[in-house]
């Protein structure tokens, strides 16, 4: 098989160059806040820019022909290259001296997971913290294009039907309209970020904290500039409500946001996935809030819970915040859900598999896949009674072809399998049962906080180095909807066509 290596490297070079550009932005922040790492940070960005520039220069004469195989490689290796070059600011400035730790932190950033190995976040230079948040934001940007334009073309996990403007799964070559679609959606993404920064500043956050939290919310990442995460603002409910709103928006399909801005509100309200996403959040919040209010002993937590607006409001707010943080896979923390009640521990563990909407920046299985699987499950009963009947699964009033349902079933099974294997591998590093399954579910779903020793109030610093690599791998495959990465491990991908 002849791969068009030149164009692959050209794209990877472009991504590196792009990464370097963002590093320059962090350098600027570092300069403005005079955090003392401006010199080393500019060195890191220079290195990245040169690397990207050189690769692009050498591959500038390339054949523009690009098909699915090159697409898979660019997507998977693109993420890896970003994570590799993204370690430079940490390593060069010495903020995170270990390469393994730095790679974990960047991979956690680009996959919008938000798991951190940093013990004292507040001690980090501002430029580095900004870079850390930026990795989330860049990753979120990548995911939007990926989910809306590229995955449908590659026909992964039934994604072809979710994208409103995808030209269909049959197209072999990447479509030029991707750029148009992506630009419009990035505008919304950028708009959300700017709006949240503004609102958070007005609500009383410092500008630096506001912009960092905005970058990490719209990308459903979850890095915070505070050691206590968003729990730092437990005394300021307004700030938390603003973050709640933007977590919800970031977990919604960006195409729907686009429709809403164009005034097609009907299309949003009648979207089945959106309806279910909304219902899930409402129901789960109600369950969690009732249990917190009546059963949980909040005082055992190491996190302070000043109930400025009363106990009831506090229960609802923390329930809503944590449900959204887990469902949208943002992973911010305002309370330690592992200390509420045993039921809520299992409950939040289950939520890690839910995920937000397709076409959002959230990870996990995604609501639409659950929706179609549930519908298909119910139809199986009917099919048993009418063996010859044609009973297609319907989504947004349209019948879904059996292939797509199979695709989704395949995705779900592969997801569960990856989770089990993931947990097994973690347990080989002497991690206990709860920590192992928590880590596997959290990494695969790009959530952030896990269970046991890696719960919401802990961080991943205690994770053995090899386990960090394994977690990074799970984050990557989870982020890229499994197939994109795993297909590279199949023999027929590399065999002659």
């Amino acid at each position: 098989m002849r791969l068009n290596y030149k164009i692959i490297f050209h794209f990877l070079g472009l991504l590196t160059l792009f990464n370097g550009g963002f590093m320059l932005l962090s350098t600027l922040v570092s300069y403005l806040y005079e955090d003392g790492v401006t010199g080393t940070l500019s060195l890191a960005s220079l290195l990245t820019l040169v690397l990207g520039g050189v690769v692009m220069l050498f591959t500038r004469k390339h054949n523009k022909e690009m098909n699915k195989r090159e697409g898979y490689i660019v997507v998977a290796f693109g993420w890896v290259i970003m994570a590799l070059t993204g370690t430079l600011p940490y390593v060069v400035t010495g903020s995170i001296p270990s390469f393994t730790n730095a790679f974990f932190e960047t991979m956690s950033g680009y996959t919008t997971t938000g798991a951190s190995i940093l013990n004292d976040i507040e001690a980090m230079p501002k430029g580095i913290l900004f870079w850390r948040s930026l990795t989330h934001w860049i990753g979120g940007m990548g995911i939007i294009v990926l989910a809306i334009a590229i995955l449908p073309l590659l026909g992964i996990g039934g994604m072809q039907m979710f994208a409103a403007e995808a030209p269909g799964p049959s197209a072999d070559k990447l479509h030029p309209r991707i750029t148009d679609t992506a630009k419009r959606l990035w505008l919304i993404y950028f708009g959300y970020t700017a709006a949240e920064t503004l609102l958070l500043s007005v609500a009383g956050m410092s500008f630096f904290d506001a912009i960092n939290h905005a970058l990490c919310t719209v990308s459903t990442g979850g890095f915070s500039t505070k050691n206590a995460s968003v729990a730092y603002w437990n005394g300021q409910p307004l700030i938390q409500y603003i973050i709640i709103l933007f977590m919800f928006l970031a977990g919604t399909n960006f195409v729907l946001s686009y429709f809403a801005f164009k005034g097609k509100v009907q299309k949003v309200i009648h979207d089945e996935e959106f309806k279910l996403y909304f219902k899930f959040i409402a129901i789960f919040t109600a369950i969690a809030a009732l249990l917190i209010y009546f059963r949980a002993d909040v005082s055992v937590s190491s996190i302070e819970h000043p109930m400025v607006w009363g106990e009831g409001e506090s229960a609802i707010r923390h329930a809503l915040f944590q449900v959204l943080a887990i469902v949208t896979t943002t992973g911010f923390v305002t309370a330690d859900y592992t200390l509420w009640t045993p039921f809520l521990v299992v409950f939040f563990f289950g939520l890690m598999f839910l995920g937000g909407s397709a076409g959002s920046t959230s990870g996990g299985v995604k609501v639409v896949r659950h929706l179609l699987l549930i519908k298909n499950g119910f139809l199986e009963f009917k099919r048993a009674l009418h063996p010859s009947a044609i009973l297609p699964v319907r989504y947004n009033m349209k019948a879904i072809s059996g292939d797509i349902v199979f695709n989704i079933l395949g995705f779900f099974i592969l997801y569960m399998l990856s989770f089990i294997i993931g947990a097994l591998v973690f347990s080989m590093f002497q991690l206990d049962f709860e920590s192992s399954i928590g880590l596997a579910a959290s990494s695969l779903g790009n959530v952030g906080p896990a269970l046991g020793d890696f719960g919401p109030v802990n961080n991943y610093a205690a994770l053995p180095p090899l386990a960090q690599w394994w977690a990074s791998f799970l984050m990557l495959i989870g982020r890229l909807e499994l197939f994109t990465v795993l297909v590279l491990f199949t023999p027929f991908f590399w065999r002659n066509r």
Partner: protein
Amino acid sequence: MKIIIAGAGEVGFHLAKLLSYESQEITLIDTDKESLTYADTHLDIKVIRGDATSIAILREGKVGLCDLLIAVTASETTNITICVLAKQLGAKRTIARISNTEFIANKEEVGFTRFGIDELISPEALAASEIELSLRQSSFSDTYEFEEGALTMAGLTLSKEASFVGKNVKDAAKIFPEIHFIPIAIQRQGTQYTLIPRGDTIFKEGDNVVFITSEGGAEELCRLTGKKNTEIKNVMILGGTEIGFKAARDLCKKGFNIKLLEGDKERAFDIADQLPNVLVIKSDGRKVDVLDEESIGDMDAFIAVGDNSETNIMSCLVAKSKGVKKSIALVENMDYFELSHSIGIDTLINKKLLAANSIFRYIRKGEVVAMTKLSNMNAELLEFEVMSTSAICNKLIKNVDFPRSAIIGGVIRGNVGYIALGDFKIQEGDKVVVCSLLRSIKGVEKLFL
């Protein structure tokens, strides 16, 4: 009237036949020599062999002088082209047969009259609505409503238990003094011709009788003939054809439970996609096991509208044997059509016949308010409006010199329907329903001019 018919298929031929009885001047154009020769030898018409989209051929048929051009070839686009050309060449009115019902639904919007087509006829849509109509009054094999139900025409087969079997029409009327119905046509079992009943005509078992009833009379008829008007809820449709699809869609909207059988998997999927409330089964209807699996015995009606007439008939017979009360089959072949009742199927539908009748009705629109052909019979049901100049105006019915092969079924005055007997006086503005054999239509028409 000078009429050009383009297309000597079954619709064209049937139309030519209907119109030639009225001594209209008819020119039939087609490319197929055989069907033209057949029409030429059987009907009193002029034929031209050639492509009707050719201007020379149209000129040869004297399109400039014709009052009406009817394009009923098998191809929709050809029909549209012919109509557009003919209109430009001087035809006064044009009718095109089409299959895409979107055209009918958006007739005003697109403005078909503006580019030369006055009327659009879709045999498939007509067949679908015919199915719906015949399901609404299930015990009758044939029903038709005048003026929104003021008078209803109902056809039924007399069973042994029917109380007036063996009696003549006059005696039957005496047994039931509260009479609100009148028989207007009878077809004897096993015969091919239609009778217009008189006072001394005797009802026999197995007769296919058409009655006119006033409002509420339909239920009474059921009682008298020993048949229950069974309510229809569960319907099975065989064949996801254009007609099957439309019937399923329309019936579903009316609240029927529909199961639709379609043999082609992709077509079945498409239908399931578009009709969420219809249960689509992948089956061509020839496997009785599948029909049983879908509990055909619980169905109230079975409608076979597949592409193959023989399969339609056979599957209707299977349905009958499983106890389905009402069966409707789509039959393309006119020869089978005549045999309808002896094979035991309640209603046969022929879309070409429907199209021909529909066009015929359109031509008569000027004088006749509504008109239908009695299925399985060679008789027409007409509705006339009485004008002050009409010969029949202000006369008792018994004093009118009415043609022997025609009968007045009822009169609608205001919005109320009356069953008119001999001493009923016709007034101006009345709408009169007449049943007439084809050969007497002209004679009846004269009375109302």
